[in-house]
């Protein structure tokens, strides 16, 4: 089993030691960070620290130095965001810290996405994402989108205040099979059910899978509205999308 001392970056070592509690997550991250190069550890550390300027510079330097785009994304950016996600789940950090790290990830992804797009790598699937009608909150949705893209999905972002008809039209236009609906308000959550109903009316319900999430949304409410899965946070959203993609592919 890998040891903390196998990791060159002191910041990463401290993060694992201080914030990770679940044995399987400690083991996984020790294995991950002891495997990846010091340069990727530095990118992950800067991302966890929310330093977008450094992430931008290090990503550019790594790519210029011949490191593959997928490697930088997986071993640097997503590896760092994984630690942020755990700290968020455990209540060590809150949305502001996640947003600042997300901004840093965005800075890195700006260099990586054009390379991946040009390389013709096949996405795992296409996800239609939107905040439901009447709701203009998009922090959670945007974090999910960033992580889904990092996780290998093509994402069509319908933005906020998305009507059921817009979800249906987007699925038809992009031949997508996965839909993610977000809501922050208890007053707008019922529009998730209306969206599912719209797909039934359009004869498309059987060919798609719905993911739901948002602060007041619960797994039980997801079942009530007819969704196929609930994601508590952006990391869970990616796991759920991968699971549901297998069902519809």
């Amino acid at each position, binding site marked *: 089993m890998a040891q903390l001392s196998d990791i060159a970056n002191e910041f990463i070592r401290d993060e694992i030691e201080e914030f990770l509690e679940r044995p399987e997550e400690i083991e996984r991250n020790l294995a991950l960070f002891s495997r990846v190069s010091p340069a990727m550890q530095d990118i992950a550390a800067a991302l966890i620290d929310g330093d977008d300027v450094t992430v931008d510079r290090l990503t550019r330097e790594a790519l210029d130095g011949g490191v593959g785009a997928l490697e930088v994304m997986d071993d640097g950016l997503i590896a760092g965001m994984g630690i942020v996600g755990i700290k968020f789940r455990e209540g060590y950090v809150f949305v*502001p810290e996640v947003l600042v790290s997300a901004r840093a990830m965005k800075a890195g992804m700006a260099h990586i996405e054009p390379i991946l797009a040009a390389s013709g790598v096949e996405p795992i699937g296409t996800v239609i994402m939107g905040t439901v009608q*009447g*709701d203009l909150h998009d922090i959670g949705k945007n974090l999910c989108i960033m992580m889904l893209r990092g996780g290998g999905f093509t994402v069509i972002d319908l933005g906020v205040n998305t009507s059921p008809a817009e979800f249906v039209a987007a699925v038809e236009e992009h031949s997508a099979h996965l839909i993610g609906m977000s809501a922050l308000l208890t007053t707008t959550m019922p529009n998730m059910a209306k969206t599912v109903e719209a797909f039934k009316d359009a004869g498309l319900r059987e060919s798609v899978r719905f993911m739901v999430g948002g602060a007041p949304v619960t797994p039980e409410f997801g079942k009530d509205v007819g969704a196929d899965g609930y994601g508590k946070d952006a990391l869970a959203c990616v796991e759920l999308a991968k699971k549901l993609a297998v069902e519809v592919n």
Partner: protein
Amino acid sequence: MGSAWKGPAISPAIVKRRGENFTRLTGEWMTPRRRFLSALYGGRVDKVPAMTLSSVITLDSMEIADAWFPEAHLDAEQMARLAATAHEELGLDTVMPVFHSQLEADALDAATWWGTVDNWPATNDHVLTDPEDFKIPSDYLKRPSFEAALGAIRLLRKRYPDVGIVGKVYGPWSVGYHLVGIENYLMDTILDPDKIRRYLEVMLPACMMSAHAQLEAGADAIMWADHANRELVSPETYRDFLLEMHKEVTVEMGGPSIFHCCGETTDRIDYFAEAGWDCFHFESQVDPHVAKEIAGDRMSLMGNINNPTTLFSGTYEDTYEACMKVMEAGINGIAPEGSVPLGTKNAVLMALADSARDYSDAHRPDGRLVVHDPPPADNGAEAD
């Protein structure tokens, strides 16, 4: 013992609509307004108040009042008629005319989308990037959102002198979300905390003006919302940015204060009590027993009936049972945790008042005052 109050706690219309099974609590002697205010301060009540401290407006109520979203947001008469359904139709002890969250932000030049008949208003563009650019318009309290809200409060005060009227203010933290945009605002709590402190400083007077105007128009209390909730920020963020400011607010507001913060707030209830709020309106993620233990006698507690699962998706019986459990925890009054979805059925919401009546009936050892924890039965032991 005071004489029984015989005023219109429940109007003949609602008695008629709900049939012969409807009964008022025997020996009810407080007006809804008196009951609400006494409970707000943790005082004596003849019945646990069942209230709205946000919005209980539904499509059912719009039809009954013939007052509709979105027009009712900007029309005092429609707003008053619609707000009154909380008392007339649902039997609640309070009414709350400001249904939406845009009152201050709209009057401060935020771009407001006023929604549709079945969708809530929201801010659809953010106008502020620098606190030094913030100004309170000279006609701030005359802007359409205020004209409607203040007009509705005046109408309700005149029409329902015995019913509690709750005003609503979004504090500077939440107005900041509307004007600056929540993402930029939250990031600046880390990247530029002094900028956030300056936003709070310049926006606070606008929020205080709103509170004072609503109290002057006839509101009995102000529900003040600043959404520093756990789903967004740490308890230390509330402590570092809002606690001292809220201490000033609770002193300067000049009326009873009810604080609202969404979500799971257990880890910051102690700070809310320290801020001096008279009451905390809390959500269903918080265990009422734990909230009670933390708040003690420092602050009343009202809430926390779940919206999506219980009120919207559940039945009358589910709601009745949930209300009973919350009252058994000894909180000061029951209310939906926040604004209920518009598709919620009035037939379900009626369980709020019914359960309060039945709970109170069973918890009045002297037939007059509700006692949440009745003393154990006399076991024959001699007193000291």
